[in-house]
């Protein structure tokens, strides 16, 4: 599975939503299209495309003809994803009728509309007809988005307790808006602490956030924001005793999907938006996802942070693909095509690592130095360069913060200096010295005495058959972590679909 981490978090959020929410979400062609484009593995896309213009439901058994026998696992996983996103409906197994499969109505209609065009849904944004200020070009938008996003990262980084001379130097002038700070606090990326300079301290989640690539960071923040909106809505609802479910966060989410389908560098019409969406604009401006000219608020411009929200790993450098790209010696110049604005300054590699664990970083950015100081023992600082060393203690400390060895390695690989990339390409070796990579992993291993997986223990089955059926279903949809046939118990990482399966099994009996 090559799903980038940001889609993973988004899918976690989506999986928790009820079916009615999905029905509303899929009324928008842009949402259906974004989900199709971003969230589905290849096989699931093939199924959706085949089902899209089928006039009547298809027999589930016919699906077996499409998939080779050894691909049963992938087939079940694809179906399970499609089901959890409420894209397909499968009739429950009955004695007299075979199971049938079809796309859900709203998703089908919206995806058709998205592909064929037409309709008056204005779901892909309404371009502004007003003249556009020529100064607002793509470079301007990139600069703007980078500035906004770095302010947010600075705020998180500056809450790191300072070690030695390298860490956390300089404080971002101004920093993000108070609303953004509150959001970071509410999302527990930072927490209030009196012993640090800014009155806040970074949390474990905050460290993980810092080392994510920009696309994943944006989604993390946006999902925090959606959850915060749901939360405040629920509180208001209690006071007003209004039993209305939360249409706001649905509209917010589909607006984000719409932003992702817009064109960079183009002006869009603010007046064509619904009131909920207009209310979202100030916050999106604070995050740097859109730009609104001060003198003319009738236009808004999506920035690169917004337009790459749902594009694939090719457009956003994910941690894993960045690592793969760096280790397979792709030269650095491809990065300028696809990276986000916030990534752009750091995508020019600046780190040199030697086989003796010495690190030389050609940077004077306090943000990059502070991130480096999370897992490096920095020794000296010069104009435009810092030097340090990876040590057992520095890596152990980082792991204590909740950073993983893989995150460190991929960060180093993604930010390796051009020289290292070139030398590696010339000799056909990986960018990072293998000894260093192995040692970082070993340091993590010796620190991790146990592996933990959150989930659910299933036990006390009525019959061995029931155990066998549920256990093999769990294995097929990929949630089985541990099982004991002897003790008739198993451990699964998720339970929603298993519960549904049990229910439908009970009904069929």
């Amino acid at each position, binding site marked *: 599975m090559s799903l980038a981490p940001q889609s993973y978090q988004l899918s976690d959020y989506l999986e928790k939503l009820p079916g009615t929410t999905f029905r509303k979400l899929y009324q928008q062609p842009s949402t259906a299209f974004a989900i199709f484009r971003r969230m589905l593995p290849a096989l699931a896309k093939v199924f959706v495309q085949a089902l899209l213009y089928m006039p009547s439901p298809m027999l589930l058994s016919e699906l077996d003809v499409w998939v080779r026998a050894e691909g049963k696992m992938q087939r079940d996983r694809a179906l399970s994803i499609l089901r959890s996103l409420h894209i397909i409906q499968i009739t429950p197994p009955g004695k007299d009728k075979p199971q049938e499969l079809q796309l859900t109505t709203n998703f089908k209609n919206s995806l058709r509309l998205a592909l064929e065009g037409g309709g008056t849904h204005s779901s892909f944004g309404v371009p502004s007809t007003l003249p556009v200020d020529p100064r607002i070009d793509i470079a301007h938008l990139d600069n703007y988005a980078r500035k906004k996003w770095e302010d947010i990262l600075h705020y998180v980084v500056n809450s790191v307790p300072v070690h030695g001379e390298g860490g956390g130097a300089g404080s971002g002038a101004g920093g993000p808006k108070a609303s953004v700070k509150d959001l970071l606090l509410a999302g527990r990326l930072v927490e209030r602490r009196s012993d640090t300079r800014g009155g806040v301290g970074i949390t474990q989640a905050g460290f993980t956030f810092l080392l994510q690539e920009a696309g994943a960071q944006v989604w993390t923040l946006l999902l925090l924001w959606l959850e915060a909106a749901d939360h405040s809505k629920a509180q208001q609802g209690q006071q007003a005793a209004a039993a209305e479910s939360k249409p706001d966060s649905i509209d917010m989410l589909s607006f984000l999907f719409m932003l992702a389908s817009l064109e960079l560098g183009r002006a869009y019409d603010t007046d064509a938006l619904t009131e909920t969406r207009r209310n979202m604009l100030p916050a999106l401006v604070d995050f740097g996802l859109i730009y609104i000219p001060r003198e003319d608020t009738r236009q808004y411009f999506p920035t690169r942070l917004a337009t790459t929200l749902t594009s694939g790993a090719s457009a956003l450098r994910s941690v894993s693909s960045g690592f793969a790209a760096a280790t397979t010696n792709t030269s650095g110049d491809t990065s300028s095509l696809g990276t986000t604005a916030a990534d752009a300054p750091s995508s020019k590699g600046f780190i040199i690592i030697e086989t003796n664990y010495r690190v030389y970083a050609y940077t004077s950015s306090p943000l990059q130095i502070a991130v480096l100081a999370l897992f490096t023992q920095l020794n000296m600082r010069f104009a435009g360069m810092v030097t340090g060393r990876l040590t057992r203690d520095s890596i152990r400390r980082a792991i204590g913060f909740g950073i993983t060895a893989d995150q460190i390695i991929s960060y180093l690989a993604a930010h390796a200096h051009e020289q290292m990339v070139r030398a590696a390409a010339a000799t056909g070796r990986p960018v990072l010295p293998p000894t260093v990579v192995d040692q970082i992993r070993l340091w993590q291993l010796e620190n991790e*005495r146990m*592996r933990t997986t*959150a*989930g659910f*223990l299933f*036990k*006390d089955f009525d019959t061995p058959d029931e155990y066998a059926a549920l256990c093999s279903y769990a294995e097929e949809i990929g949630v089985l972590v*541990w099982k004991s046939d002897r003790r008739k*118990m198993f451990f699964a990482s998720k339970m929603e679909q298993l519960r549904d399966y*049990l229910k439908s099994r009970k009904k069929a009996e």
Partner: protein
Amino acid sequence: MVRAIRGVLIECEPAIKSIIVHLDSANNDIIIEDLDEQHLVVKENMVHVLKQKLEDRLKETYRPEEPLADSD
């Protein structure tokens, strides 16, 4: 009737497992189910405490790092 119990699955060496079992024996407030030699399910809210206790217990067995000769 089948039951689903929320918890955290821990996978570790038998030696580590026996330490966890020993830590649990004081109050029986950690382990939900002892699965086999290398697996057990513990309460979600106790994982952090458990890691801390385990770290303390293992501290004496760590070799201190020999300082590398360095000429920065």
